[in-house]
C-alpha cells in the first residue's frame, strides 16, 4: 500500500512539480556537481529530452533545493528502485497509452506484459525478482531510442547486449546449463554476422529472429524460432524482394520450401522431424552450405543415402565437375517427393541429364535397368496388395500375408535408397528380395481366393446332400406315419 501511495505521489509531483527549465531540476544540478555517472549519462537520455526529471523515476521534488526536503518521504522520494521495482517504475508510463500520448510517443504499451510472459520473465536464481528488468537491456540513465546508434538495443549494439549474459557460461549455467553460450562465436561466422560486423544494420541480429520483449524458449510452440514457426521468421526478411534487393539472392525460398516434401511435412503435418531452415543452414551460424558440404548437410538425416553416394562412382564424377551432390538431382528448397520418375532414361528422369545412348553410356544402361527393376517391384507389390485386399473383402483370414506386405514395402524403400549406390548388382539383390516377398504374398492371396470359391462350392455340395437327406427322411416319415 505504501508503495502504491508513493507511486501516486511521484506521478502527481512529476506532472505538477516538474521544473520549467533544466536549471530548475535541483536533483540533476546537485548530482552533476558531484560528477556521478548517472548525471553524466542523463543529459542525452530520451526521457530527459522529453522533459522528465530524476524525480520521474526516483520520486521526490526536483524543484526544492533543500536536499532533505526534496528527498523526503513526504515529497514521495523512492530512492533507487531495485529488482522488479525497476520495471514497475518504467511501466508507470510505458504501460499507459494515455501517458505515452502526452509525451508524443507511439510506442506499444504492452512491453512489460510481454517481458513477463517471456523466458526472461521467469523468476531469477535469487527467487526475489524476474530474470530481466527493463534496465537489463536498455540501461538506466542515458536510455536512448532504439533507433539511436548508441542504444544498447540498436541492431548494431544488440548482439553485444544479449551476449553480456548469453556468452557468460557461469551465469547461463544458473538458468539453463544445456543452453550453448557460443552463439556469438557462431554468429560471427555466419553471413549475417560477417555483414553485421561490417556495419550492415539490416542483417539479422538476435531480436530479428527471437523477438525483443516476448522472447520465448525455442521449445515453446509460440516461439518465433519453434521449428514450425521458423521458416516464416526467416521469410520475414528473405521473402521481401525490396529488403533483399541489395543482397542479390533469390526471395522465393519460402515459397519453394512450403511446397517441398520437407515443407509439407513440417508446416502442414507438423512433423517436427522434418527440417526447418536452420537444420540445413545452421541457426546462429547460418550460411548456405557450400558445394562440398551439401551431402554432409543432407546426410545428417539421410545418412545411408549419403554413405552410398560417397562410395559410388558418382562421387568422383560430381567432385570433378564441381556439382553439389544431393542438390544436383533433388534440388534444394523445392525438393519434391522422390518418385520413380527421377530414375531412368526418359526425358523427365534426372539421369538423362548426363547419360544418353551416346554419352556416358554405361550409366545410361544402368539407369534403364534400374528403372525397369523398380517398376516391376512396384507393380508386383501393387498386384499383391490388390489381391490381399480382394481376399480380405471376401472375409478370408489373410492377416499373415498382409503382414508380409510390409517386407515388400520395406524392400521397395531399401531399393530406393540403394539407387544411390548406382550399382546394378546391389540394386538387383534388394529388388529381388522384394519381388520374392510380393510373389509369395500374391500366391497366398490367390490361395485364399481359391479357397473362397472352394468354400462356396463345398457349401453347395453339402446343401445338396443335406437336402436329399431331408427329402428322403421326410418321405420316409410320411410313409411310416401313413402305415401306422
Amino acid at each position: 500500500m505504501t508503495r502504491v501511495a508513493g507511486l501516486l505521489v511521484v506521478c502527481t509531483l512529476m506532472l505538477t512539480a516538474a521544473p520549467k527549465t533544466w536549471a530548475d531540476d535541483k536533483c540533476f544540478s546537485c548530482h552533476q556537481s558531484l560528477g556521478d555517472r548517472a548525471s553524466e549519462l542523463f543529459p542525452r537520455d530520451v526521457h530527459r529530452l522529453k522533459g522528465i526529471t530524476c524525480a520521474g523515476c526516483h520520486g521526490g521534488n526536483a524543484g526544492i533545493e533543500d536536499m532533505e526536503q526534496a528527498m523526503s518521504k513526504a515529497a514521495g522520494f523512492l530512492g533507487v528502485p531495485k529488482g522488479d521495482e525497476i520495471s514497475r517504475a518504467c511501466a508507470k508510463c510505458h504501460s499507459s497509452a494515455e501517458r505515452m500520448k502526452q509525451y508524443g510517443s507511439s510506442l506499444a504499451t504492452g512491453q512489460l506484459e510481454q517481458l513477463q510472459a517471456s523466458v526472461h520473465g521467469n523468476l531469477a536464481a535469487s527467487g526475489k525478482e524476474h530474470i530481466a528488468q527493463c534496465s537489463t537491456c536498455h540501461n538506466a540513465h542515458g536510455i536512448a531510442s532504439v533507433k539511436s546508434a548508441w542504444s544498447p538495443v540498436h541492431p548494431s549494439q544488440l548482439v553485444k547486449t544479449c551476449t553480456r549474459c548469453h556468452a557468460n557460461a557461469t551465469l547461463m549455467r544458473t538458468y539453463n546449463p544445456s543452453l550453448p553460450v557460443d552463439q556469438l562465436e557462431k554468429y560471427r561466422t555466419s553471413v549475417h554476422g560477417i555483414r553485421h560486423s561490417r556495419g550492415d544494420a539490416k542483417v539479422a541480429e538476435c531480436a530479428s529472429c527471437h523477438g525483443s520483449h516476448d522472447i520465448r524458449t525455442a521449445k515453446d510452440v509460440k516461439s518465433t524460432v519453434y521449428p514450425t514457426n521458423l521458416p516464416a521468421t526467416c521469410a520475414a526478411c528473405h521473402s521481401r524482394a525490396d529488403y533483399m534487393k541489395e543482397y542479390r539472392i533469390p526471395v522465393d525460398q519460402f515459397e519453394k520450401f512450403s511446397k517441398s516434401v520437407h515443407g509439407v511435412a513440417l508446416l502442414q503435418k507438423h512433423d517436427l522431424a522434418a527440417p526447418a531452415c536452420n537444420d540445413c543452414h545452421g541457426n546462429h551460424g547460418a550460411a548456405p552450405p557450400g558445394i562440398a558440404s551439401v551431402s554432409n548437410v543432407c546426410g545428417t538425416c539421410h545418412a545411408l543415402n549419403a554413405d552410398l553416394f560417397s562410395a559410388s562412382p558418382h562421387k568422383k564424377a560430381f567432385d570433378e565437375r564441381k556439382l553439389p551432390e544431393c542438390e544436383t538431382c533433388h534440388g534444394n528448397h523445392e525438393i519434391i517427393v522422390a518418385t520413380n520418375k527421377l530414375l531412368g532414361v526418359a526425358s523427365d528422369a534426372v539421369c538423362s541429364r548426363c547419360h544418353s545412348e551416346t554419352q556416358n553410356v554405361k550409366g545410361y544402361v544402368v539407369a534403364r535397368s534400374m528403372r525397369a527393376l523398380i517398376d516391376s517391384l512396384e507393380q508386383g507389390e501393387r498386384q499383391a496388395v490388390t489381391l490381399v485386399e480382394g481376399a480380405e473383402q471376401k472375409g478370408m483370414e489373410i492377416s499373415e500375408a498382409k503382414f508380409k506386405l510390409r517386407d515388400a514395402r520395406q524392400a521397395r524403400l531399401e531399393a530406393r535408397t540403394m539407387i544411390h549406390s548406382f550399382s546394378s548388382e546391389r540394386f538387383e539383390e534388394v529388388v529381388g528380395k522384394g519381388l520374392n516377398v510380393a510373389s509369395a504374398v500374391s500366391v497366398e492371396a490367390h490361395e485364399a481366393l481359391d479357397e473362397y470359391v472352394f468354400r462356396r462350392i463345398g457349401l453347395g455340395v453339402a446343401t445338396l446332400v443335406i437336402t436329399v437327406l431331408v427329402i428322403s427322411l421326410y418321405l420316409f416319415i410320411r410313409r411310416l406315419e401313413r402305415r401306422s
Partner: protein
Amino acid sequence: MWKRLYDWIDQRVQLGGLMEFMGKKYVPIHAHSVWYYFGGVSLFLFIIQVVTGILLLLYYKGSEELAFESIQFIMSKVKFGWLIRSIHSWTANLFILTSMIHMFSVYFARAYRKPREITWVTGMLMFFLALAFGFSGYLLPWNELAFFATKVGTDIPGVIPVIGKPIMVFLRGGEDVTGATLSRFFGFHVAVFPAIFTVILGIHLLLVQRQGMSEPMNAEANPHTEKKTMPFFPNFLLRDLLLWLIVLNLLAVLAVFFPWELGQKADPFAPAPAGIKPEWYFLFMFQTLKYIPGKVLFLDGEILGVLLFGFAGLLWTLVPFWDRKSNRGERNRFVTYLGLFAVIYIMILTIIGWVA
C-alpha cells in the same frame, strides 16, 4: 447283420426292457407341439459345440501371448479350421437363442408345473451355464472387443457390496483383466462348465424320458377327449433328425457367408474402442444398467440393477414353486403377463442396445 448285432448286445445288456420302454413312449400332438422341437434342437446344438470345441482344442493355446495367434492359425492354416471355428461361434449364439425359445415355450405352456419342477430348475441352471459358456468363450480369442467387453462384464459383479469385489477378483484372477483371466476363463469354458453341464443335462434328459412330454393344461382339463399322440421312437426322433439336418445346413450357410471375424489382438494398454457392447444375449441387461440413474434413494444405480436382475432370475427359476394356481390346473394370468412382459422387455431393450 443288424439283427445279429442287436442280439449280440441284447444277450449281454438286456436291451429288451429299454426297447419296450421306448416303444411305449408317446409324444402328445396338439396345436403347440411345434415347441417340443426346440429342446431337441438345443441338444443338437450342444452336441455340435462339444464336437467343434474338442476340435478347436487341438490347436487352441490358452495364453495371453498365443491365444490370438492360435485362432489366426486355425482360421488360415488348419484344414477346415475356419469352418469349425465359425460353426462353433455361430452355434454358441443359436444355442442360446433356441434355449431361450425352449425356456419361454415351457414357461407359457406351464410345463414346469408339478411333477416337472426339477426338470424346469435343471433347465434354468443349464440356461445360466449357457450364458456363462458364452461369456467365458467370448474372451478366448483374446481380441480387442472381447478384452474390453470382459473388462466391462467383470466390472458389473464388482459393484455388489461386500461379496462383489472378491467375485470380481476371482473371475479375473486378479484386479485387472490379464492373461490370468484368459487362463481362468479357458479352464471354466472347457472343463468346469462342461462337467457341470453334462451332469445337469443327464438329469434333465432322464427326467424328460421318465416323465414324458408335458401336455397343455386344457388337454389335461378334459381327460375324456381323445388324445392324439405320436410314438417317440422312431417318429418324433426322425422328425427331430430332419430338423437337425436343416439346422446343420443353416450353420454351414452362416459359416460360409458370414465367417466369424477375429478382429485385432487385445492390447491392454490401448484405449477402449468406441461402442463396446456385450454379446446380444447380455444386451438387454447392459442397456437397462445404462438407464438406471446413478443414485436411486440410498442405493447406487448399478448395484440396484444387478440386484434387480439377480432377483428376477431367482423368481423366474423358482416359478414352479410360487405359481400354485397352475399346479392346481387353474389359469394364472399373472404368470402369462409376467412372461409377456419379460419377452417384450428383452426384445425391445436388445434392439435399442443393438441400434445404439
